[in-house]
């Protein structure tokens, strides 16, 4: 029983290591498809829980990426006077970062797949 629990904990720790850096790549990739608010990004990532972004982690990340110039945020207020939302778009610097990060990720994935081989 102890070993089983320990095994689950180790997997969680390993998954947490895998998420390093992946959150920023996921945000850049989603914004490359079109402008989105923080809520919009979270709704799309809710279908991919292993990416590991939560309400508490996405806004500080967006704030940093905006200061770094990789994304740009702009407030949009609906015409009916409802509360506005800040929507983010990819900047040219963000698009370049995405290209480099995507290429690095593809090389990593390809090499690791070759190392892992066929699971059967």
């Amino acid at each position, binding site marked *: 029983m102890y070993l089983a629990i320990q095994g689950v904990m180790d997997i969680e720790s390993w998954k947490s290591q895998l998420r390093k850096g992946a959150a920023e790549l996921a945000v850049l990739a989603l914004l490359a498809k079109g402008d989105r608010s*923080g*809520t919009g990004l979270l709704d799309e990532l809710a279908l991919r829980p292993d990416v590991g972004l939560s309400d*508490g*982690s996405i806004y500080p*990340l967006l704030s*940093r990426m905006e200061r770094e110039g990789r994304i740009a945020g702009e407030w949009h207020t609906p015409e009916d006077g409802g*509360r*506005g939302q*800040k929507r983010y778009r990819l900047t040219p610097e963000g698009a370049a970062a995405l290209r480099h990060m995507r290429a690095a990720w593809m090389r990593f994935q390809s090499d690791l797949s070759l190392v892992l081989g066929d699971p059967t």
Partner: protein
Amino acid sequence: MTQANRIDAYIAALSRALRGFSEPDRQDILQEIRAHLDHRDGEGRLDEALKSLGSPQDCARGFSEELKLQQAFTDRGPARTFAALFALASQRLTAAVGLLISGVFFLFAAGFAFTAFYELVTPELAGLWSNPDSGSFFFGVIDSGSLPETRDLLGPWLFPVAALLTLASLLMGQWLGRLFIRLLMRRPRMLG
């Protein structure tokens, strides 16, 4: 308490927790978190959103950490790097290890700088000292009582060597500090 009151209370507490931020940054964060909570309230998911954001203090800490890391990374100076690691050391093990390792090199730099300064003021007491009897070496300043038993190996070369070692230790401490800052930036605190 109505849902609107709960949102107001959360935003008021978050506003207090964000005291260290500039007013435009603080207002931007508050406005965005309020918009997020209003949106989730409209979907009937306010409880879930509040739980996921964590306490106002935790939420503010997430922004504060990202700001410190980004400033340290952009600034490139040892003071900002060391300050960021120091501020995060109590919350992140990576920052604590980084602070310890880079701190050792900064201490070495201070020691070498002190020796170089002493070489200018009291050259007879500063040096790379060797004690032939015990076979030991010591780099730094000794008291005048130990002089008869020791021999200075560097002589006039002490100042340039100490200055070089000061610079090398500073650069090493700074490089290691930035390495740990980069590691911290790659791993948002509240993932999952």
